[in-house]
């Protein structure tokens, strides 16, 4: 049962409050990762894991858009979500290539990266979203996106991090470019959420999806540090 207070706040605030509530372990892992004494050594493995996830961004949105199309006229949130995905898919297209560019600069050939089997944790992270989209409701993907785009990379911090570990800033292009783009993307998602006629059931599903995303994202990153 939802409290009256939570139904009075905006849709975006309601989702982001839940994410904020349980992101402690993920934040702790972020601190461990980015301050790790062997970050230079770990960074390529981290990029590989990042690629394993980011390669699913556009396909996931395409899947969600297809589900929305099927629901047009029957589901009050389908039209607004479809408009969001149609706008966001071109914006995200090719970002997986940025990670491959960074890896290539560090001496890892694209074909070798693409030949590696992605970690099961990354498959579980993205794979769960295919399940939610196909078998439950595509609104779940908004919980996933809210987590991944919700804390844009701090450009100054990652430039300093690259300098500190002696890696060319160009090999941080994925994080630096997302640092510039994601504040706008986060705000676009919030505007979309706030305009959708979301029910308590939609909110609960986005919450479940966001919680699972935080947990698996933390695992994906933690495995790079091990």
């Amino acid at each position, binding site marked *: 049962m939802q409290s009256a207070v939570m139904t009075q706040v905006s849709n975006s605030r309601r989702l982001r409050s839940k994410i904020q509530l349980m992101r402690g372990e993920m934040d702790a892992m972020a601190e461990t990762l980015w301050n790790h004494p062997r970050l230079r050594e770990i960074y390529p493995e981290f990029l590989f894991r990042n690629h394993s996830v980011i390669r699913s961004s556009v396909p996931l949105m395409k899947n969600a858009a297809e589900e929305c199309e099927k629901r047009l006229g029957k589901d009050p949130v389908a039209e607004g979500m479809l408009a969001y995905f149609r706008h966001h898919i071109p914006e995200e297209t090719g970002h997986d290539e940025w990670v491959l560019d960074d890896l290539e600069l560090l001496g890892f050939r694209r074909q070798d990266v693409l030949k590696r089997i992605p970690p099961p944790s990354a498959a579980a992270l993205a794979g769960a979203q295919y399940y939610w989209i196909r078998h439950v409701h595509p609104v779940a993907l908004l919980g996933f996106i809210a987590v991944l785009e919700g804390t844009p990379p701090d450009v100054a911090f990652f430039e300093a991090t690259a300098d500190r570990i002696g890696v060319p800033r160009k090999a941080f292009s994925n994080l630096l470019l997302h640092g510039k783009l994601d504040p706008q993307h986060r705000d676009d998602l919030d505007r979309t959420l706030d305009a959708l006629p979301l029910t308590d059931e939609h909110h609960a599903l986005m919450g479940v999806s966001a*919680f699972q995303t935080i947990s698996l994202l933390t695992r994906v990153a933690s495995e790079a540090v091990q």
Partner: protein
Amino acid sequence: MNNVQRLTQAGLILPNAAAALNPADQQLINSLTDDEVSALISVKSKLGDDFAQRNSRTIGIVF
């Protein structure tokens, strides 16, 4: 049993953190649905004893 008590019993909120929860966080946690609480328990995500600390840096895996 409310959500704070459920999550404390499941070991996801440490007892000292539960006792120190501010009213807004308490209200937010108790507003979660049963499905959301079950999801938290399922993924075993500890809310920790410092989740009121709002200092977030990206983990770096982006969309």
